Each structure stands twice: as structure tokens, then as C-alpha cells.
């Protein structure tokens, strides 16, 4: 048993009061509660998130924050279905880390809280490229804060270029320059079997987009409300990629797997990838550099990015916003820059020496943002992506002609948009 004397009680009370006032003086909040966060990615992203939570807990020591990670191993479709299910069963998280591919799907369903006021109050975001915030809007309101992004560049193996006696590509190279380089970098044995591919014609929607953008076109129209597959320029892009495979023999037919491992092993000279490949390239000691995608009519590339949003009706809004501020603040941006898993949203972080150390042309990542276009992500993105990739792989494999493939894809895409309009109307 403890015996508490009046004197001890007074001293203890005074000490507690003093501690509380010191806490307040340090900017600590007395508020208490719980915050649940669902982020995506791997170990590096979890470590960055835990660092942000630790910073948050210094200001909000009475909040318990839990974080779950979704590896997005089966694509954004499963993630969207999971999140919609969580809202339907009222078991949603307070904060979601997501990507541009899901923005309209979530915003159109009213799952996220508009956060324009919060963004206006936060001075850190003035350092972010305005284009990123523009893509976070749906019907005039902002629902997400960008954290990091990836734009597609042509990643090339410098050793293989040296071996083939090819000059490194310049930032303003053309489709013809690219095609000639891919041919020169393809190595075949006496019986015509390929031991080194010049290029990997991509198999994923995000990686393919620069080919359309650099020809001044796209799979969808400019406001992502209808198919654009009947634009002759789309067919021109597809024919160009088809010829790289079937006429030049510089690339295998895109299958279900990407060729990252073959690139890292020096069996493929060029691939379209974002900054996420850099940690693996470093581990493989590959002598690699990046260059913007080659251009036909215009210089362009595609950008996709991760962002953080607040669930509609989240409790403890002040603390939740403070948590989001940490998840998108300068310290987290610096962590992203150091881990190299993507390009940080903040320009200051993208200018850190750790970020610029590799590859040699690392500054190009941020410089190309000026002409990068967001990956088309309508509210029916999940369906659009599947339809396009299905016809794209069939066309690249020569299973359907490019003219027929474009026509059939166009019909299916427009059916999907009609269903979307009907459901939004409903």
C-alpha cells in the first residue's frame, strides 16, 4: 500500500502540472485517440511512414497510430476493391496512401475528404510542382496531397552502348534515333537467336504511355472521358512498336512478365521505367543512365504519383491532418529522396545530393516534369487499363491486326465509359 501524504500529493500535482505545461510549451497536444493508416509499398515506404509517425507522436503523444502496408502486388484494382469494401463495412482507415490511378475512383464515390483548406494552410506545399496538385483535383476540389512520383524515362545500359560503339542518347533524340540504337544494340548469334535485346517493348500501361504522348496523342481523349483509339496517330505508335518487335527483331513480344531482371543482368540494353528501379540498379552495380523518351512530334513523358488522402468523416480531424502533414512533410520527402524508391514531391528534396548522386542524369527526373503528362486515370481506370492492355498485347503478338485491335478496343472502351456515365448518373 502507498501512503500518500498531503505534502506528497501537492508535490506530485505540481510536477504533473509542470510537465504538462512543458509539454504544451514544446507544442505537444493533450488530445488523445487512435489513427489508422493504410499505406502502400515495401520496407522502405514502411520505414518512412514509421519515421513520420514518430515525429507526429512527439506532438501528439496521446495518440496511438497504427499503420498497415499494402504491397499492391496484384495491381490497383484489388486495392480499390478492398478500400470500397472497407467503406461499405464502415471499417475504413483514417488515412490512405494511394496513387493517381485511384484518385477519380475514390473521389467520384465521395470516399475522401476535400482538403483544399488544409493545403492552403500548409506552407511546405508551395515547394511542390503545381502539376502534381492539379492532378489531385476532382471536380474543382483537391482530395490528395502528393508524396512522391515517377516519370517514365528510357533507362539504358552504358556498358552495352560502349560495347556496340554507340553514342549515348541525347535528351532530344527522335524515334528514328531510338530505333537505330535498339537495332544496333541487339545481338544475335549465327542462327539468328537473340542473346541481347536492344529494347523491351513494354507490357504495362504506364510504361507505354510516353510513346503515345511523344506522338501528340493518347489512348483516351484529353479529359479522359472517351476512347481515342481511332486516332491514326495511335495506330502509328502501335505499328512502330510492332515493327521494333517483328521487323527489326530488337525486342521480344511483351508477355506477362517485365524484363527488369534481364535488364539488370545486361541482357536488355534499354527499358522504359521510373525511378523505382534505381535501388535495384545500384545493388546490381549496373552502369546505367536515363534519358527522356524519344520524340516524334513533341517532347513528352508520363508521370504517375503517390499521394495521401483523408477518409470522409474521419474522427480527430485536427490530429489526422497533423499526421498527413508529417506524411507529406519535408522530413518524409528527404527520406524518399534518400531511399531512391521514387522522386520526392518536394523540389528541395529532389535537389539533395543523395538523390542526385545516381544515375548521372538524375536532374532530368525533375526537369522533365515540365512537359510530363499525368497517366490517364478516369474513374473507370481499372477497366480502361485492362481493355487497353488486352488488345495491346494481342496486337503486339500479331494475334489481331492493329486496325482491328484499335477498332475493337475503341468499342469496348466506349462501352465502359457509357457504363461509368450511367452509374455516376445513378
Amino acid at each position, binding site marked *: 500500500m502507498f501512503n500518500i501524504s498531503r505534502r506528497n500529493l501537492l508535490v506530485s500535482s505540481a510536477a504533473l502540472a509542470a510537465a504538462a505545461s512543458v509539454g504544451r510549451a514544446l507544442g505537444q497536444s493533450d488530445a488523445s485517440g487512435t489513427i489508422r493508416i493504410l499505406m502502400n509499398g515495401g520496407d522502405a515506404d514502411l520505414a518512412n511512414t514509421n519515421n513520420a509517425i514518430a515525429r507526429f507522436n512527439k506532438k501528439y503523444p496521446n495518440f496511438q497510430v497504427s499503420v498497415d502496408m499494402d504491397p499492391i502486388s496484384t495491381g490497383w484494382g484489388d486495392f*480499390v476493391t478492398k478500400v470500397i469494401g472497407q467503406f461499405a463495412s464502415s471499417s475504413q482507415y483514417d488515412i490512405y496512401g494511394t496513387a493517381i490511378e485511384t484518385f477519380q475512383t475514390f473521389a467520384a464515390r465521395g470516399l475522401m475528404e476535400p482538403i483544399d483548406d488544409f493545403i492552403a494552410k500548409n506552407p511546405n506545399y508551395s515547394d511542390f510542382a503545381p502539376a502534381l496538385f492539379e492532378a489531385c483535383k476532382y471536380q474543382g476540389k483537391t482530395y490528395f496531397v502528393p508524396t512522391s512520383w515517377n516519370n517514365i524515362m528510357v533507362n539504358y545500359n552504358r556498358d552495352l552502348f560502349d560495347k556496340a560503339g554507340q553514342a549515348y542518347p541525347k535528351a532530344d533524340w527522335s524515334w528514328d534515333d531510338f530505333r537505330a540504337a535498339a537495332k544496333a544494340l541487339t545481338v544475335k548469334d549465327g542462327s539468328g537467336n*537473340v542473346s541481347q535485346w536492344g529494347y523491351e517493348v513494354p507490357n504495362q500501361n504506364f510504361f507505354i504511355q510516353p510513346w503515345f504522348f511523344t506522338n501528340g496523342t493518347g489512348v483516351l481523349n484529353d479529359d479522359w472521358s472517351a476512347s481515342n483509339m481511332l486516332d491514326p496517330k495511335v495506330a502509328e505508335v502501335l505499328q512502330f512498336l510492332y515493327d521494333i518487335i517483328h521487323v527489326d527483331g530488337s525486342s521480344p513480344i511483351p508477355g506477362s512478365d517485365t524484363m527488369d531482371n534481364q535488364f539488370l543482368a545486361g541482357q536488355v540494353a534499354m527499358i522504359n521505367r521510373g525511378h523505382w528501379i534505381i535501388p535495384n540498379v545500384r545493388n546490381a552495380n549496373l552502369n546505367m543512365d536515363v534519358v527522356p523518351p524519344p520524340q516524334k512530334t513533341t517532347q513528352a513523358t508520363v508521370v504517375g504519383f503517390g499521394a495521401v488522402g483523408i477518409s470522409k468523416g474521419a474522427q480527430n480531424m485536427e490530429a489526422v491532418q497533423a499526421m498527413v502533414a508529417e506524411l507529406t512533410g519535408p522530413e518524409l520527402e528527404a527520406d524518399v529522396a534518400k531511399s531512391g524508391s521514387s522522386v520526392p514531391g518536394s523540389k528541395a528534396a529532389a535537389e539533395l545530393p543523395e538523390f542526385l548522386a545516381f544515375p548521372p542524369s538524375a536532374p532530368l527526373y525533375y526537369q522533365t516534369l515540365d512537359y510530363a503528362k499525368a497517366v490517364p486515370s478516369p474513374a473507370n481506370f481499372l477497366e480502361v487499363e485492362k481493355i487497353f492492355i488486352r488488345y495491346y498485347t494481342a496486337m503486339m503478338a500479331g494475334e489481331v491486326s492493329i486496325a482491328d485491335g484499335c477498332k475493337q478496343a475503341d468499342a469496348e472502351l466506349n462501352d465502359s465509359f457509357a457504363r461509368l456515365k450511367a*452509374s455516376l448518373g*445513378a
Partner: protein
Amino acid sequence: MATTARHSDLATSQMRTGYVLVFPAMLLYLTFVLAPAIVTVVLSFAYYDPQLGSHWVGLDNFKRFFTDRRSVQIFWNTLQFTLFAVTGNVSVGLLLALALNRSMPGWLLYFFRLAFFLPVIIAAAFVSIVWGYFYQDSGIFNYYLNLLGLPTVRWLTSAQTAMPSIVFMDVWKNTGFFMVIFIAALQGVPKTIMEAAIMDGTPPWRRFWRITLPWISPVVFFAVVYASIGALQVYESIWILTKGGPGDTTRSMSINIVEEAFGSFQIGYAASVAVVMTVVILIITGMQMLASSWLVSK
């Protein structure tokens, strides 16, 4: 009268106990089998979106399925896979069982049985990943083809070879299971009849057709029905090897259902495809049961 009443009380008590004993199993069945099946049927007549609003659409989902030209292709892919995979699994399994159902040193017998059965216990996802590497343009199959001076085969990226490649892997993986079933059935063939046939000078192929096959025919039909139900639901091996491509050439009905429901969030439409698929499985199984009642030796 008293005896009758006591008997009636006993019967009631036994009945009550019976209900209590089956209740947990029935509860599990209702919760995890019957209720989801009923919900799927209900959803097949609806557009379902908890946020944007759900509403009844009548037969629209079924109309969409039966008028979509992709449905025919996907349905045909599934039947094609079923036909070849079932034929391959059952016939190769039977051949292996016949080959191993003979006198040989015990260790050799167990070695062969283990060797052929081993793929069955390996996860299909893992097997598919490994075979995916074998089937690559620069994979081991093409390596040996090239050594022989033959051209590279596009195992998984050509419409002509993708489905046969998947079937080949499926037979390699699953035929050991049927082999074990057939070995058990073959050991039930009465030795006396077989010995009598041998003494009569009946040639081996005739003994197989006239004695062995009729004797094990119920097991063969079980194997066909079991393999067909599994093949009609094929998912992971195709998904990992080709993701249904190129185009739609290897997409199965199960893949289509998952893609529509969880990839495109077309829950109602996916439910209607699931209902159609269930009906197809029921019809095919029913036809096989009918055939077995006519053909199986009594």
C-alpha cells in the same frame, strides 16, 4: 401403449440429439456455402456499388454476357482447356498407373510413385512461376530447341502455343494424383480372373479392355468428373503464365469473373458470369453422370 410412448420419446430424443449434432456443420454450410451462393445469384440481377448506389437491372447482366463476343471466346477457352487437361491428366495418369502396377523392386516402385506424385503436392502458383521461366523466349525449352537447330517457339505469347503450353504444365502437375487413384483401383482387380485370362492366352491389350478397364470404370468416371470440375474452374496457372493473354486467347471463365469483380468492380456482371459458369459445370457434370450410369460396368 406405454411401450409405444417410450419408443416415441426415445425417437424424439434421438432426433433432437441428431439435430444438435448436425447444427454446427449446417451453420458453417449455411454461412460459408449457401448464403454466398444465394447472394451471388441475387447480385447477378443487380448493379452493385455501395457508394454510387445499387439497383436492379433485371437480365441486363446476362444479356451483356450472352451478347459480348468475348464471352464466346472465354467460354471456348475454358472448354478447350477442360477437354485437353482432363484427357491428358486421366489418360497419362492411367498409363503411369498401368506401368507401375507390376512387380518390381519395392524401392524402385516407391521411387517412381513419389517422383510422379511430387508435383501434386507443390503449390500450383509455385509450379506456374517455374514453368513460366521454362517457357520464356530465352528459357530452357528454347535453349535445347536452338541447340538442335530449331527456331525459337513463342510458348506463351502466341495464340497457337499458349493454351497447349498451359495444358502441358497442368498435366505434368496433376497427373500424379490420378495415377495414385488408378493404382489403388488396379490393385482391386481380382487376381484370379486375370490369372485365368493369362492361362487362356488372352493378349495383354485384350485383358486391359475386357477385364481391367471395365473393373476400374467407376473410378475412371470419378476421375473424369473430378478433373472436369477442377479444370472448368482453372485460374492460378493461367493467371501466372499468361494473365489470360495474348489478348483473350487463354482467358478462362474464372479469370474473367475475378477480373470483372475485383479488377473492374463490375460485381453484378461478375456474379452473372459466375451463375452461368455454375450452370455449365452442373450440366457437364450431369452429362458425365448420365454417361457413367450407361457405360460403367455394374
